[in-house]
């Protein structure tokens, strides 16, 4: 990838023999990329736009592209009247809890599979663990619903955290495995020769080296937990309900409070956007499941 500065590029462009085909080419590409950007951003813009309108302005026959009567009543109402503040708090508790435990359990497992998979089932088990992520959620939801209701765990934080572990742990194991594989064994060997035990070698030498990987994994796992819908829909009622299942209850039925729904969506987007902006590069690896070193 070239590292030319903008100035150089302009200079190069000016020096380039101008061909009709080349110019068309560039115009075509510019148009394509611009359209992409617009299409990507439009729904986000529209949602934020809707969130700042008063309820009746959201259903006008001619949509307004900027709120005529700018207001934050959507936000206030959804949080207080519709009680979304409780849901958001529940989301925070559940997502943080599920992430923390998944990391705690998954990181060591990832190390184990990176170093000596043979001892614990080999590559097949590793792939089996990843494949758990591919189950359609309805498959484990049905039996877990039975089991949890026998145990009286419906609509509890415990249930939600446990449930989220089912897809978080495989993700953590998978990602950390590839991060650990990047750490040369020589480093650990050296530590062992210096008298460290294996655990100390892991804890004091290897772990610090994969810290960026852990950070990226944590954020990724947190985002998935934050966004999860199906499990939350089935297993929560009022006490532990996170924000995703709340959204459909605000839609349809007798009248839809679009500004409230848009406000809730915007609130839900914020942490995700923040993370996305700050952690771009690190996240890419996680998002592509370490399939490609990036």
């Amino acid at each position, binding site marked *: 990838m070239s590292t030319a500065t903008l100035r150089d590029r302009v200079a190069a462009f000016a020096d380039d023999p101008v061909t009709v085909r080349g110019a068309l080419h560039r115009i075509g590409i510019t148009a394509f990329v611009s359209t992409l950007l617009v299409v990507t951003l439009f729904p986000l813009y529209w949602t934020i736009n809707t969130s700042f309108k008063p309820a009746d302005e959201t259903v006008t026959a001619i949509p307004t592209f900027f709120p005529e009567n700018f207001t934050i009543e959507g936000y206030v109402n959804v949080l207080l009247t519709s009680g979304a503040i409780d849901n958001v708090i529940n989301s925070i508790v559940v997502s943080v809890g599920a992430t923390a435990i998944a990391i705690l359990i998954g990181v060591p497992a990832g190390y184990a599979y990176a170093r000596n998979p043979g001892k614990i089932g080999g590559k097949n088990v590793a792939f089996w663990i990843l494949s758990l992520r591919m189950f359609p959620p309805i498959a484990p939801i049905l039996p877990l619903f039975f089991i949890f209701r026998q145990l009286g765990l419906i609509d509890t934080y415990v249930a939600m955290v446990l449930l989220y572990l089912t897809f978080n742990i495989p993700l953590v194991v998978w990602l950390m495995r590839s991060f650990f594989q990047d750490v040369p064994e020589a480093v650990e060997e050296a530590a062992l020769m210096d008298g460290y035990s294996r655990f100390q070698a892991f804890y004091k030498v290897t772990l610090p080296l994969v810290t960026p990987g852990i950070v990226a994994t944590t954020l990724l796992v947190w985002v998935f937990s934050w966004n999860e819908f199906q499990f939350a829909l089935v297993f929560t009622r009022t006490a532990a309900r996170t924000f995703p299942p709340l959204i459909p209850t605000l839609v349809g039925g007798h009248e839809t409070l679009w500004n409230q729904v848009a406000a809730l969506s915007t609130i839900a987007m914020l942490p995700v956007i923040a993370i996305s902006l700050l952690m771009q590069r690190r996240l890419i690896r996680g998002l592509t499941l370490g399939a*490609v070193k990036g």
Partner: protein
Amino acid sequence: MSSDTKTSRLGRVTKNDHLEYWFALPAILILLALVIVPMLWSLYVSFTNLNLTVSGRAVEIIWFENYANLLTDRRFWDSVLKTAYYVGVGVTVQFIIGFAVALIMANYTDGWLNSLLFTVLLLPMMMAPIVAGLMWRLVFDESFGPLNHLLGAVGLPEPSWLSSAELALDAILIADIWQWTPFMILILYTGRLAINEDLYEAAKMDGASKLFTFRHVTVPQMKGVIAVALLLRSMDAFKFFDKMYVMTQGGPGTASELATYYNYILGFNEFAMGKATAMSWLLLLFAVVLANLFLLILERGEGGDRVV
């Protein structure tokens, strides 16, 4: 790779200790308890006539009756076909657009523009799918949504996105393509970057055309990455649920009812647990078959030691 062979000194030293065992144990136990055991239980239920709306009736084993009923159920096959359509068309479109953008980003734009593109393009992927579905619901609305308004303003027809049987599925598909094409872009772009630039230099010096280079350098080098991208997205597509729920509830009629939604209805609308679990096992079967097909292709292609 070195962790697979036992010739490293670390391997020799650690062959006799149990650190990996203890490290992996909690994860394996939890997954066993929360996934494997319940799934086996659900397999059992799928052979029974369990239905939660009929209290007090003894639960009987009816063997494969649930499966037979499903396989002869028109609505089941409808939903599977729609899922196939959705996976086929959706993943293909995402792939084509994704590849195009990835190549553009590799060859025509760079530096700050690429950073900008990355940042913006990452956003849809990170949204909660239900929020993404909601956003598109707003945009597609026929009475007060901006899309039809804009189309009408330039004289184009204003389709009934969510209320016509023909378009409802495509509308949801558009929302999903919007959300997941960035995933393709990311994987394919990073894969493209990993290709040795020398190969391209050589091709250029030999006077190869762009198309030729694409077909004979880019694609072969990226076989593994392409396969993984397609595999991951196809598998994920089987989990599709949130957008259906908030945009159309499978409607109008059953026009946008995919397999996961019908399965949900069987389980939590009709409480026909026997049938619902049977269906989820059938879906799993389809997913496993699909995954294995992909793996076959993977193994035939590039070594894949980095990939799996």
